[in-house]
């Protein structure tokens, strides 16, 4: 496997509903002190240029479509890093009425990087981890395979949909227009929070 992808990880950073603690740390990792550019990291701010999607904060009803659209506009091979505990699981906001949980309720996540707030070292570590997945995806792509069989997408359950009266698990809602639904192997069970439970609230 060559490292064509991993040598140039360009990132895009999106703030779900973070308290901005993680955002500050994500940007801190790009500053001279932590110097993520050593690994070729460039903050592009544009999904069409980016390889790695850094999401901070939990995902709520308001930004669910936004996260999905940005993810869909990124071109394969691509990776998602959930930065901070809110992004990983919803954190302290997981029970809030409008919060659907971590980023993996919206899109497949490849690397979970916990912390409150996340430390810049963790961000860099997560990016390096994601680089390995990028390389794997690229190898699969070139072999004519489906990149969605690699990383988080392989075991993703489709997340949740915004239903008429609340959140519905995508697997139950018929996995309509959830991203990558046709390619993902809906294994379920990776999430410890069935979305249906939310709906009951």
């Amino acid at each position, binding site marked *: 496997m060559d490292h*064509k992808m991993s040598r*140039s990880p360009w990132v895009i950073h999106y703030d779900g509903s973070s308290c901005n603690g993680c955002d500050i740390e994500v940007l801190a990792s790009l500053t001279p002190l932590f110097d993520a550019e050593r*690994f070729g990291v460039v903050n592009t*701010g*544009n*999904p069409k240029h980016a390889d790695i999607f850094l999401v901070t904060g939990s995902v709520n009803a308001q930004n669910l*479509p936004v996260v999905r*659209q940005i993810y869909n*506009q990124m071109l394969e*091979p691509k990776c998602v890093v959930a930065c901070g505990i809110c992004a990983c699981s919803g954190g302290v906001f997981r029970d809030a009425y409008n919060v659907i949980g971590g980023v993996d309720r919206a899109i497949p996540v490849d690397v979970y990087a916990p912390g409150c707030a996340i430390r810049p070292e963790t961000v860099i570590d997560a990016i390096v981890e994601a680089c390995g997945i990028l390389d794997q995806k690229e190898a699969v792509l070139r072999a004519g395979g489906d990149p969605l069989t690699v990383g988080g997408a392989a075991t993703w359950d489709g997340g949740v949909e915004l239903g008429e009266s609340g959140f519905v698990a995508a697997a139950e809602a018929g996995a309509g227009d959830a991203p990558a639904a046709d390619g993902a192997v809906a294994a379920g069970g990776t999430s410890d929070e069935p979305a249906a439970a939310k709906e009951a609230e």
Partner: protein
Amino acid sequence: MTLLYFLTLFPLVPALGMLLARGDRARDAVGLVGSGIIMAVTVVVAVMFFGTGPQSFEVAPGTSHVLSIFSSVIDVILCAVILYNAYKYRNALTGVLGVVQLVGSLAFAAMTLPATEAVTATPLYLDYMSAIMVLAVGIVGSLICVYALGYMKDFQAHDEHEAALRGQTAPDRRPQFLALMFLFLSAMFVIVTSDNLEWLFCGWEITTVCSFLMIGYTRTPEAIKNAFTQIILNMLGGIAFLAGLMFLHFNGMPLTISGMIELSGAGTAQSALLVMPVVLLSLAALTKAAQMPFHTWLLGAMVAPTPTSALLHSSTMVKAGVFLMVKLSPLYATYPVTGFMVTSVGAITFLLAALMAISQSNAKRVLAYSTISNLGLISACLGVGAPEAVWAAIFLILFHTVAKSLLFLCVGTAEHHIGSRNIEDMDGMFSRMPHLTRLMMLGIMGMFVAPFGMLVSKWGALVAFAQTGNVLMIMVLAFGSAATFFFWGKWLAKLSGVDPTAQNVEVNVHKTEWTALNTIAALLVLCCVAFPLISSGLVSPYLAMVFGRVPHVIGKDAMYLMVVIVAFIAVVLLTSFRVSNKPHVNVYLSGVGTESYRHFRGSMGHEVKAEKRNLYLEDALGEKRLGPAGSVVCCAIILFALLCCAWIGPERLAMSAPSVLRGKYFEGSGVVGIFIGTVAFALIAPLVGGLIDGLDRKLSARMQGRVGPRLLQPFYDVAKLLRKAPASVNTMDDTYMACALIFTVVGGGIFVSGSNTLLCAFMVTLAAIFVVLASASTQSPFAQVGADRELLQVMSYEPAVLLMSVGLYLATDSFDSIAVTGQSAPIVVYSAPIFLALLAVLTIKLRKSPFDLSYSHHAHQEIVQGIATEMSGGTLAKMTLMHWCETVLFLMWVGMFFVWDNPVSWVVALVVMAATYFVEVLIDNTFARSTWRSCFKLGWGVALVFGLLNLMPILVDVFI
């Protein structure tokens, strides 16, 4: 001879036919047959001309006398028409001028007609220039008449619809309209083939009155007002013409163009007197060519139906003015005050009209300003009176005729089908009217993009001004071209937008309109491709005949290269080979885009359309600011010339112009050399450029106190981009980007092979245009803003880059980069100020902070990457490669200033290049982004100050 009579008189037949024919079908038949015959005869005349060469035709004195009486009668009838209209619409000023002209015409007739000995033996002629004009008028003019047949149906239908809404009926004046168009063609043929100034004047006045009647066609108050503006200004010119004729006759001078030129060579007291009539005739020509302060009539004339604008106000009638000046141009060198008047008025008009065009959003007004501006450049060239400049002027006339008529006709058709002539409403035209838009883009490219004819002519003009040491004109041209680039560029960008949801609305365009449009477009490409032939077959022989010297403006090899590139662009634009099969994706709209085209979910939950308007810079370049200033200055210049004639002894005004011709001619390295250079550049520049980029990033990191990326990081980035999955928001952007990369590489190849630096600079500009197209075609608002800024940056640095070539020329007497190696000292010694100007704009050109307005590689200031927003994968990789090549090329421009005929100099140049780049990185890391205003001010400021500083010595040199 008979053919010439036939050519002149035949258009009257369809004109009469139009008046008699009833119904659309009869009119169509008359129009098509008439136009067809005119075109055929034109071609026959041209072919015969090639057989016989230039000749004058004798007319029997009796016939000639009768014809003179006839033309006097026509003059009087025309005055009557004017007076009738002045009375009907109660326009006092027109009345007064009409009476003056009537009295003048009668007095002149009374003076000349009895004097039978004054009858000229050969009042008609056909030389190279006339042949060019006959072809242009005959073919383009007839095609416009064909176009008018279909167009006027839509026009009338629209009028009737409007009138019906008001409960009235719209009178059908189409027969008169079409008849006037054919009458006009006849008058134009008279103008371009008459040596007898009396007859020429008759044709001149017919065109004026035709234009008057056609502008007033709709009879709306605005149309009537503008028609009277036109007639008043043109009658001033007509009266000046008449006064010139009377002066000639009064002093016993011949009433023919050839006679005047013969007389000027005599060097007698009588020949010195010629200065007055030359000034008066030039004044008449300037009014007809809509130069400042008379330009307002052409702007007002845009209310007329589009065929009028195309025929009279861009392609032919205004050309009558410059045609007369072409004929008088040998005299401008002999009588410097006349040359000064024509050149200065033309130069000021060229620059100011181009700037004012930037502030316009009405397509027809932009076209009008651009016409005025181009006629200004033509006049400026002609005023120089050197064959080099006249060469450029003739090509400007030819290409402007073809390209501008195409544009007018396209705008006319577009207006009927999208319901607006506002450029802002042409968003997404590429999808709404695909074929028409491509023709329009071709026309626009023909107007300003290298290597199409117009730009080649401008190039010729620049070379001519450099060769004749005309410093102020060099400056005006450098700035005027940059302004021209901006207003055409933003229009082109607007047109290029691909809108996948658009409805095709061009299905019911009339067949006659398509015929005319396609033929003129083909003609445009043909003219560009046959450009070397036209130069050697028509223009050079004409100049050899008139000036006794064949100018050497553009090398043969450069011409062939340009022919290839024109063909290439035409293929890219007009065929469908470009269609890419990448998966389609929507544009980026911050993650809130909806399924609808260019819509996003607003903060209040409803759908909003993302729109983007062009830059107009109205506060800086509005017509209210520039128009009056230009008019005042031009009035002053004209008055100065007239007062000189009146007060200073004529013998002191007649002297040979102090123009020193400079120039050694290198032929560059030839097509083969350029090809080898291009291959070498294509292989080496990306490697070197990528390495420079890597060093740049490493250096920046060190300046910020960090380790930074690996040295080869830029290569890793490109390798990565090439492996990304393909996707595109439209089918075009990748192709445009590929073109941009190719043109940059060719530009570099031209430079490293030691060929023409001007051609190299034009190639880089051409590449910039294609980047803008690639970006604007995506219809992403972010990318479009970036594209606008890119255009603005190009406009900012363009003058300094052109001056760089002039600086090279100044030192080496050649535009070829190889010439520096033959110098005994580096050219920076001669062109230090220009070198400084180039250094100052290098930051803009390398897109370094504070001028990374459109896109920065480091993206440390642009949030969504401006111009590159919608580019991904391979397309973005191409852009990166292109930037690397540009970096290498620009640094070589810097190095060029330090090379001389010593091998050590190459090391010096390398050191200077390295130092320059280091300073650029330093600047990049030190300054925060500035505004486009400061970019523009810096670019133009340094070019103006340092350019003038550097070039001034030549101006003084002549007198020492």
